[in-house]
């Protein structure tokens, strides 16, 4: 029970860090604040029974921070933000979308056990009781049978690399394609100079 409050508190820290990161004028502070949010997130993962994710989140956070600091450290942006009427419109649009989303989420969550709502926190479909409309889902199967079917003690790894290994092929391809894309964008010259000159 106390854990719920702990998660709520950490979430508050995270929200504050994200808001600081979004609103502060200094880019370095912004990056450091988002790093703080990421580390708070990894603690939340640990509390919610996801140690795999906690480890991954910490190391990914470290690498993303290095990348972001690499981006800003030698590049001073002296110009302040310029405000145009379009920006106010965009802000209003985001606020509107956000309001709609929060309302939608509230109705989707409220009602507890009602029909067609998200199950309350702590009682997912997995924790199925007799009489529920929805069977416990595929996850119960994974938990009960992964040791017997795949021989792996870590069920998350069994899901990632055996049951749903096709997704992981996609995941590996994503990091591959993103890095290849970064290489493509970072080429010093996109077009050959000689041909361009002869074209003109």
């Amino acid at each position, binding site marked *: 029970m106390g854990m719920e409050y702990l998660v709520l508190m950490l979430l508050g820290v995270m929200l504050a860090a994200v808001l600081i990161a979004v609103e502060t004028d200094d880019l370095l502070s912004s990056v450091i604040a988002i790093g703080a949010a990421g580390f708070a997130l990894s603690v939340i993962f640990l509390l919610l029974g996801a140690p795999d994710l906690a480890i*991954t989140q910490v190391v990914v956070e470290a*690498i993303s921070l290095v990348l972001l600091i*690499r981006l800003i450290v030698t*590049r001073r942006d002296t110009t302040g933000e310029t405000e145009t009427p379009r920006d106010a419109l965009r802000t209003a649009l985001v606020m509107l979308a956000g309001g709609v989303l929060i309302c939608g989420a509230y109705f989707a969550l409220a009602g507890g056990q009602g029909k067609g709502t998200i199950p309350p926190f702590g009682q997912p479909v997995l924790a199925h009781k007799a009489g529920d409309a929805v069977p416990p889902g595929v996850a119960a199967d994974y938990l009960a049978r992964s040791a017997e079917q795949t021989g792996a003690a870590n069920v998350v790894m*069994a899901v990632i690399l055996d049951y749903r290994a096709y997704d992981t092929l996609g995941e590996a391809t994503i990091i591959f394609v993103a*890095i290849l894309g970064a290489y493509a964008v970072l080429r010093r010259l996109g077009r050959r100079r000689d041909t361009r000159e002869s074209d003109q």
Partner: protein
Amino acid sequence: MSEGMTPIVKNTARLISGFIAVFGIYIALTGHISPGGGFAGGVILAAAAVLIVLAFGRSTAERIFTPSQCHLWDAAGAGLFLVVAMLGYFSGGFFVNFIAHISKGQVGKLFSGGTILVSNLCILIKVAAGLAGAFLALSAFRRQGVDAADIVVEGGQKA
């Protein structure tokens, strides 16, 4: 030399980077019995490479691993993962855990889980090489002077 950071940082990096790399490999190897996995391990291994690039500078780091090698290992890791998946074709499907069909090993020991161990290693290689290479490419754009010179040439031709 002006490249890289101070000798204190360099010596610390020299000491630590090996440990970081070994920890990354350990995390990947034991992914199927304890928290971790190939991706986290690969990122840790890449962090060791990033540390070397940051501490010693880009040209020193390129004596240890060149961008071309990074591409090669990146592609090799991804390709090997695909090969492991394709090997399952002979036992009747795609991505079949064919090793576990033969022998599962003892649950909780290192040699268990069939192809999960092998796949974790492939992902480790892929992620580590890819991120290290990407960081090398990014750090080529560090100094403003070089970048600014490029703009003038390009802009002059465009106009």
